[in-house]
């Protein structure tokens, strides 16, 4: 890492070339024809165009990643330069144990066409180093004589499982428009994210993508973000524009390069903090470990190890051990290496270690600057993975004895080695983290990128802990979810090995439950035939076990802590019974609740499941016919926009908040304020849509979304009823519902999914004792609640103003306020809604948005005015079809209609006597010097005035009628009419307005 920072870098300058063309309207991304690259201080300009093969900056300067460029694109601001690529792999990027599959010695300049789906094919264009020549070599022809060093050769393709003959068609030309879309989480090349992190999960992308097998497994299990790439493109992009615009991982990279964390958003800052903090501490640790390992290894002559001073600073002790530093470039390699190391050290005694040796000699190591981030990331791996360890613990590992022995002698070292293993060995990490570090709440926040500060602090604590050489990791475990026994710890290192090996075979980790793991798994590696056999065996088992494991996955972690005994001997059946037990309990609980409710049923009149609906129409609604109608339909507030412009930051923040909570399985509150029409509810709905999509894609655990609205209930206590009804479909009284919810949220239950509760118009839930609000904010703090509460209200200081302390305190400080839209934003909103329907003049739009922004910043108002303007425009011409653009004057008219006060017109249109009465009122006010007079007084004036005007004086009854009419329009404010002549009269308009209006009438 140090090296990474201090290394002198050439600064390259990237410029788009050619005219941008839009290729994704929703994302507002623009494609570009080519990219000009130049190195600072030099004249030469390299032009990169799609179709060329490029080198992409990676961890290793000598062996950058290779890819074929498919397309360039950038966002509107032209700040972000991105490119779509087709990856190629070097052999070194292929997982260690798969290299054998090649079956021949690789050509030094051979690369493989990458067919896996795990790798993000979107990169930051600024990580492009230059172009390279790639030649396709047919399968049976030998490699050409090494000519230029710059030419690389492709012969085979690699699909993460096997090498295949490359279809020449693929190499011919991949149309840029249809890049191969990875449908599954990535793999080897995905090491690139370190170098070229683009979009998507901002922080996560910044981290080296983990071992593919893990990813794959995780993906299949349920919730890896990486599957994002597999998602439907549209939605993903919708998300990516948000994240990309704000928190793009490329920013991190550049920030890191500059060595300043200052400009990265908070989350990242935290992460970097932890990263930054770690190397120092780690280093000593790593050094010690390295030395230790070195000794062992040397004595064994397993690998010839050299301590390379250049690498010694690196975080990873693994690097110092690397025999052929140069070869290594992928994080895969790095990651793999350390555990190999450990396994080697551990396997010293085992005869099977020989197989390993070969592999490890092939092993290529590299410096991972972000090893810690790896770890963070791995922690982010699916909860299921965490739970999946249970079975693994049971594995009988012959090497356990050795481990124990080691532990006995050098306990701290043992831990270190475990630590070392854990850190780099991505493949294993998910389990290890949860198993080995007691502090980590189980399944803790995947995606630490989602800034869970908690996670970061945990991590820091852990590091401190390790620094102290504290033996008692367990004692530290305040997060009781996970208190593994020491034995577990011991065995875990073994298991890691076996596990990871199995994982690399691309198998679900759960297989380990039944895998014949008692046989040293190393054998598998030695002979591929053996492996094949066992694989098939295991797979059948997997199929059986998978379903069950998935179901219990959430539950099991909680269970674990109670089991202090050595799990090694425990059998599958035990687990099953446990599962059954928990399930049974759950079943009972759910069975119990309903029986209570029905007896209390109060309203037998309304059928419980009446399905009311408005009758459907006989003739279908007509579709908009011309441009103006189309525009009007698009501008209607109800039309759901494709994306929400101008709220990216808020979207991202809320998304991160909810996602992290959902992933952690924790709860929390958030308060969102903002004046009406600023997109609060819409943004949240958008967030939920995205999250729901993500959960559909199995990237995050499923969750439940419930929405209540203070305005849509008749009484604050109805909130309970509605929540319960939406959760469980029962209908009970408010009190009972409160009790049931209380129980639901405070008791642990297996298989509980997170509930996301949106409380709109929070202020209406105010009661005198505030118990509704209290409960709403108290539930998320319960340990088993898994409730995320998002609240919305209009006033920023609502918690301070109406909430008593204990409620406000529970609401917490996670607040966000939506500012009224500025005129630019409003303009953008309209434009994005219109979406190329050319119905408005540019100036007209600007006028509307400026006017609205000046008054309220309410987007609804803005849209309504535009809609009205289209109507006016349509009516202004005789033929609706011939109506042109909405012009300034139409908009002006609409604005006048909506904003002008009607009082003056009303006065002008009033009858003569009414106008006279108003004058009398003013005259009387002036006489009295007060802004109030009785009708009697005014009437005297009125009579005098009518005499002056030469009108027949009216009777008192008539006068009262006139007065009442004015009062009904609210031109006058009157007291109750039973006071008759004594009722007091006030003006509801300013005197000047009245005089102005009356003067204009007389002129």
């Amino acid at each position: 890492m140090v090296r990474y920072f201090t290394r002198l870098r050439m600064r390259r300058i990237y410029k788009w070339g050619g005219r941008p063309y839009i290729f994704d309207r929703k994302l507002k991304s623009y494609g570009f024809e080519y990219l000009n690259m130049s190195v600072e201080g030099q004249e030469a300009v390299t032009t990169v165009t799609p179709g060329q093969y490029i080198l992409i900056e990676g961890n290793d300067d000598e062996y950058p990643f290779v890819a074929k460029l498919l397309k360039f694109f950038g966002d509107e601001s032209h700040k972000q330069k991105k490119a779509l690529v087709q990856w190629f792999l070097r052999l070194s990027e292929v997982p260690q144990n798969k290299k054998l599959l090649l079956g021949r010695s690789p050509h030094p300049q051979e690369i493989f066409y990458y067919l896996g789906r795990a790798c993000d094919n979107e990169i930051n264009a600024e990580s492009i180093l230059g172009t390279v020549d790639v030649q396709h070599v047919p399968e049976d022809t030998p490699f050409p004589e090494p000519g230029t060093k710059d030419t690389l050769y492709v012969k085979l393709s690699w699909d993460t499982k096997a090498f295949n003959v490359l279809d020449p068609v693929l190499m011919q030309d991949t149309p840029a428009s249809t890049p191969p879309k990875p449908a599954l989480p990535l793999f080897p090349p995905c090491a690139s994210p370190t170098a070229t992190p683009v979009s998507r999960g901002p922080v996560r992308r910044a981290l080296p993508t983990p071992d593919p097998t893990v990813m794959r497994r995780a993906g299949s299990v349920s919730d890896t973000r990486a599957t994002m790439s597999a998602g439907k493109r549209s939605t993903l992009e919708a998300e990516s524009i948000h994240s990309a615009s704000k928190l793009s991982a490329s920013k991190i990279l550049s920030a890191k390069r500059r060595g300043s964390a200052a400009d990265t958003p908070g989350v990242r800052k935290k992460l970097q903090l932890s990263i930054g903090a770690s190397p120092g501490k780690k280093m000593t640790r790593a050094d010690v470990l390295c030395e230790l390992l070195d000794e062992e290894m040397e004595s064994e002559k397993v690998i010839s190890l050299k301590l390379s001073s250049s690498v010694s600073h690196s975080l990873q002790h693994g690097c110092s051990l690397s025999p052929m530093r140069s070869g290594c470039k992928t994080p895969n390699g790095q990651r793999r290496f350390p555990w190999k190391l450990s396994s080697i050290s551990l396997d010293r005694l085992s005869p099977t270690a020989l197989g390993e040796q070969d592999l490890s000699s092939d092993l290529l190591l590299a410096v991972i600057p972000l090893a810690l981030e790896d770890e963070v990331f791995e922690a982010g791996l699916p909860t299921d993975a965490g739970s999946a360890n249970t079975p693994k613990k049971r594995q009988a590992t012959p090497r356990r004895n050795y481990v124990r022995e080691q532990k006995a002698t050098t306990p701290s070292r043992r831990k270190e080695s475990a630590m070392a293993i854990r850190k780099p060995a991505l493949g294993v990490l998910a389990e290890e983290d949860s198993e080995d570090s007691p502090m980590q709440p189980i399944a803790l926040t995947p995606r630490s990128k989602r800034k869970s500060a908690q996670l970061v602090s945990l991590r820091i604590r852990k590091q401190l802990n390790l620094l102290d050489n504290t033996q008692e990791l367990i004692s530290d475990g305040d997060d009781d979810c996970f208190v593994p026994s020491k034995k577990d710890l011991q065995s875990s290192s073994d298991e890691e090995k076996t596990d990871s090996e199995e994982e690399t075979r691309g198998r679900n980790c759960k297989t380990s439950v039944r895998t014949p793991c008692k046989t040293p798994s190393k054998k598998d590696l030695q002979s591929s035939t053996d492996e094949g056999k066992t694989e098939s065996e295991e797979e059948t088992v997997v199929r059986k076990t998978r379903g069950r494991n998935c179901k219990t996955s959430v539950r099991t972690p909680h269970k674990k802590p109670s089991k202090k005994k050595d799990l090694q001997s425990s059998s599958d059946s035990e687990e099953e019974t446990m599962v059954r037990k928990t399930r049974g309990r759950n079943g009972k609980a759910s069975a119990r609740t309903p029986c209570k409710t029905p007896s209390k049923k109060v309203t037998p009149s309304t059928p419980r499941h009446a399905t009311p609906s408005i009758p459907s129409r006989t003739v279908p609604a007509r579709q908009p016919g011309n441009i103006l109608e189309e525009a009007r339909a698009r501008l209607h507030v109800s039309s759901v926009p494709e994306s929400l412009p101008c709220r990216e930051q808020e979207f991202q923040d809320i998304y991160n908040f909810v996602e992290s909570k959902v992933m952690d399985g924790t709860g929390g509150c958030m308060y969102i304020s903002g004046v009406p029409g600023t997109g609060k509810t819409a943004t949240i709905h958008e967030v939920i849509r995205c999250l729901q999509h993500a959960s559909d894609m199995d990237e995050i655990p499923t969750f439940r979304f419930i929405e209540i609205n203070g305005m849509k209930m008749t009484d604050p206590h109805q909130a309970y009823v509605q929540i319960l009804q939406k959760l469980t479909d029962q209908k009970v009284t408010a009190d009972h519902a409160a009790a049931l919810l209380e129980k639901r949220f405070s008791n642990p239950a297996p298989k509980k999914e997170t509930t996301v509760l949106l409380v709109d118009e929070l202020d209406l839930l105010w009661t005198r004792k505030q118990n509704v609000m209290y409960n709403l904010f108290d539930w998320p703090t319960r340990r088993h609640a898994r409730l995320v509460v998002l609240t919305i209200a209009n006033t920023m200081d609502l918690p301070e103003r109406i909430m008593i302390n204990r409620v406000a305190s529970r609401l917490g400080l996670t607040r966000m306020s939506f500012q009224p839209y500025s005129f630019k934003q409003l303009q953008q909103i309209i434009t994005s809604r219109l979406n190329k329907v050319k119905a408005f003049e540019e100036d007209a739009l600007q006028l509307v948005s400026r006017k609205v922004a000046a008054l309220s910043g309410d987007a609804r108002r803005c849209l309504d005015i535009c809609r009205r303007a289209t109507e006016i425009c349509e009516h202004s011409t005789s033929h609706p079809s011939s109506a042109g653009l909405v012009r300034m004057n139409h908009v002006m008219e609409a604005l006048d209609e909506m904003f002008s006060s009607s009082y003056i017109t009303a006065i002008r249109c009033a009858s003569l006597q009414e106008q006279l009465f108003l004058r009398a009122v003013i005259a009387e006010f002036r006489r009295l010097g007060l802004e109030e007079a009785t009708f009697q007084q005014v009437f005297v004036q009125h009579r005098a005035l009518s005499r002056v005007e030469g009108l027949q004086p009216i009777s008192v009854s008539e006068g009262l009628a006139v007065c009442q009419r004015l009062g009904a329009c609210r031109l006058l404010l009157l007291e109750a009419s039973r006071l008759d002549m004594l009722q007091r009269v006030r003006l509801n308009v300013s005197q000047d307005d009245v005089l102005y209006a009356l003067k204009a009438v007389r002129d």
Partner: protein
Amino acid sequence: MSKRKVKETHMPVGECISQYGYIFQVQMILRERFCHQRLPEKPVGMESQHKHLLELLRRTAVHGESNSVLIVGPRGSGKTMLLNCVLRELLEVKDVNKNVLPVHLNGLLQTDDRIALKEITRQLNLENVVGDKVFGSFAENLAFLLEALKKGDRSSSRPVLFILDEFDLFAHHKNQTLLYNLLDVSQSAQAPVAVIGLTCRLDVLELLEKRVKSRFSHRQIHLLSSLSFIQYLDNVRSQLSLPQDFPDTNFYDEWNDGIKTLCEDQSVVDVLQRHYNSSKDFRSLHLLLMLALSRVSASKPAIKPTDLLEASRVCMVDSKANILHGLSILELCLIIAMKHLNDIYEGEPFNFQMVHNEFKKFLQRKSHSIHNFDKPVVIKAFEHLQQLELIKSMDSSTAKIQKEYQLMKLLLDHSQIMEALQKYPQCPTDVKQWAMSAFG
């Protein structure tokens, strides 16, 4: 038709009968007009508003576009008439006819959301869904209705037109729940609705809570008639004229000619001018014309200027002065005493004792015709005046103060008292003189 004409000329008796029949028909037609039972062919003087509203509702009905609009205008300016005209026209369109569900609500009838919700459910015929049963709680009702509206979508469900008469009164409901929900539906992708509010309050938007207001589209159709007197006169004529399809052309011509001359009569023009000055709305005009029309009979088959004058007199009469005519001499004397007290103390309140003293002074000094009354009798008369609300007690806590000393105020104007005295039958001259003398 010609046959009948022949008949009429030859048979005076038959003519008389048919004349009676025609008069009956005329009264029928005109009464329907004046009592707002029949909509006019075309709303007068509000063409643009009519077009706007019609377009709006048509879009809701045809395109399923949700809208909200307020029709604002002073009382009697024709808001409901305009809306009804538009609805009639809308329902004549074939596509629309079976496709809209109008729901009429009135702020004076549906005084809270609970009642309003029940009414909506009833008018939407949704109660059938739950098997005719009376609904449960208010909360259930609301949830039920919202659910129903939420299920619909723009293209497939029938548009619902919510017509809220006296819209301002709905704004006084608790939390404005109903308005919020209706307007929210109109701003979200649910069943298409049009919320049409009718109100006479110009400041109605200020009544709406900010989030309710934000959901309202801010369309307001103002009905402020800027009718000139000439147009007013024309309107009167057309209102009184018979329609083209009147069965008898002869009578038709006769009647319409009569109306034409009537409207040119100077006294009639004066009366109408006075009315026009007082108020431009049609409702008060209709009242006037109705009174005039009721004086038409078979023996007097036309409206004469005198009829209109008389009707105008009835319309303009001062109600308080009328009450004064029915008072006894003693009560009248008390009123006069109060008037003097008002003059002396410049409108300060008085009590019975003061009035009684004033009255006694009058009896002692000036009265020739009026005898002394016992005090209880005077008190009784005083109380009667209070019951007639000619005088009003000033302090609310009546129980604690003796009746004689309660502070009162006179609810009559000097002019009203003098006018009443002039018209009072057989008013003693000394009382009249006392009334006219300054300071009793």
